[in-house]
């Protein structure tokens, strides 16, 4: 039961862990849906998928605000003392970029929808204001932007996950376990 009480220096809060995985799964799902749907020929199914993608994007956008607020209010645990300085810098930069992209990706999608003349109506109920006037050329540009931001994020998520696995299997430190508490228990016993 010790693991239920997280000291700021040794572990993430349950809320931080919950938000991390909730948003991670939502982002991977919404990203995959985006990859799949944009090649489809126009059909009712395609229109549905686009709407679902946009609803998911808006939902993630909201959760990211909660997550950032939580992150700012709760200091994350320190990195292992053995980590070289350059790795700390890269880890720090990756996290900052991932946070920026968690805002930039849904925002670019929202802007793109506005510019293309397809308003976002959250869950088909709540219309979001159009941030831009309809402008097809700008819409195409923002589509490129949305795609570029997404692929940048995918690359960073890959690096982020790869680094976590490297820490777990090669360095054998607690980096991955503190975001996946059950790993910590089975491997190193109760994390202190």
């Amino acid at each position, binding site marked *: 039961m010790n693991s239920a009480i997280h000291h700021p220096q040794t572990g993430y809060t349950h809320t931080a862990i919950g938000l991390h995985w909730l948003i991670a799964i939502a982002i991977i799902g919404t990203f995959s849906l985006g990859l799949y749907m944009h090649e489809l020929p126009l059909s*009712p199914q395609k229109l549905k998928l*686009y709407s679902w993608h946009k609803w998911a994007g808006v939902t993630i956008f909201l959760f990211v605000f909660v997550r950032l607020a939580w992150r700012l209010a709760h200091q994350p645990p320190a990195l292992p003392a053995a980590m070289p300085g350059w790795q700390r810098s890269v880890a720090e930069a990756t996290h900052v970029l991932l946070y920026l992209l968690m805002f930039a990706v849904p925002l670019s999608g929202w802007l793109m929808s506005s510019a*293309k003349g397809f308003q976002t109506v959250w869950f088909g109920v709540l219309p979001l204001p159009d941030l831009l006037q309809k402008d097809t050329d700008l819409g195409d540009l923002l589509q490129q932007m949305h795609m570029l931001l997404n692929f940048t994020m995918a690359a960073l998520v890959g690096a982020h996950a790869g680094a976590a696995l490297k820490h777990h299997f090669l360095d054998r430190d607690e980096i991955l376990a503190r975001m996946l508490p059950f790993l910590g228990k089975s491997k190193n016993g109760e994390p202190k």
Partner: protein
Amino acid sequence: MKFRLPGLALAAILLSAPVAQAVEFTQYQHGRSSLSFVYKQMNVPVDGQFKSFRAKIAFDPAKPAAAKAEFEIDLASVDAGSKDANDEVAAKAWFDTKTHPVARFVATSVKPLGNNRFEVAGKMSIKGKTQDLSTPVTVTQQGSNATFDGSLVLKRADYGIGDGVWADFGTVANEIQIKFRLVASAAAATK
């Protein structure tokens, strides 16, 4: 600027002269007319318009019962909000513009409703299907021009617009909000 004033004054007299008497508006002005619509897909309102359409109008506000109006739309001139949508809407399931390039409305009666409003009833033909249609129209006279404004809701299923996979209204709603503005000027001959 000064030497233009007499010309303007003369034009104003000429233009206002017919308004004082009964006047019939017969010259359709395409450049100032518009035909737009809003449809909902997944509850998202999307704006569209037709670029090519024409009208034959003969309207004397004093004799609405004698008014004549005929309206034709080239369906292939649709802008349904995106290139994908335009290609789709021209296809067989929607307008089938190859077989039915033109939609036509022919007015059969015009009744005054007061306050420059008139109830226009007629037959609307789209895609080989003809339905009765009536809509209030507001007429605004300005100089030698009359503007006919109106909006109505057309149900796409009444005309078989959006068949097959699109027939379900869950994605694209049945009701299409249509807004039109037609401008006609008084013919020189009727002065």
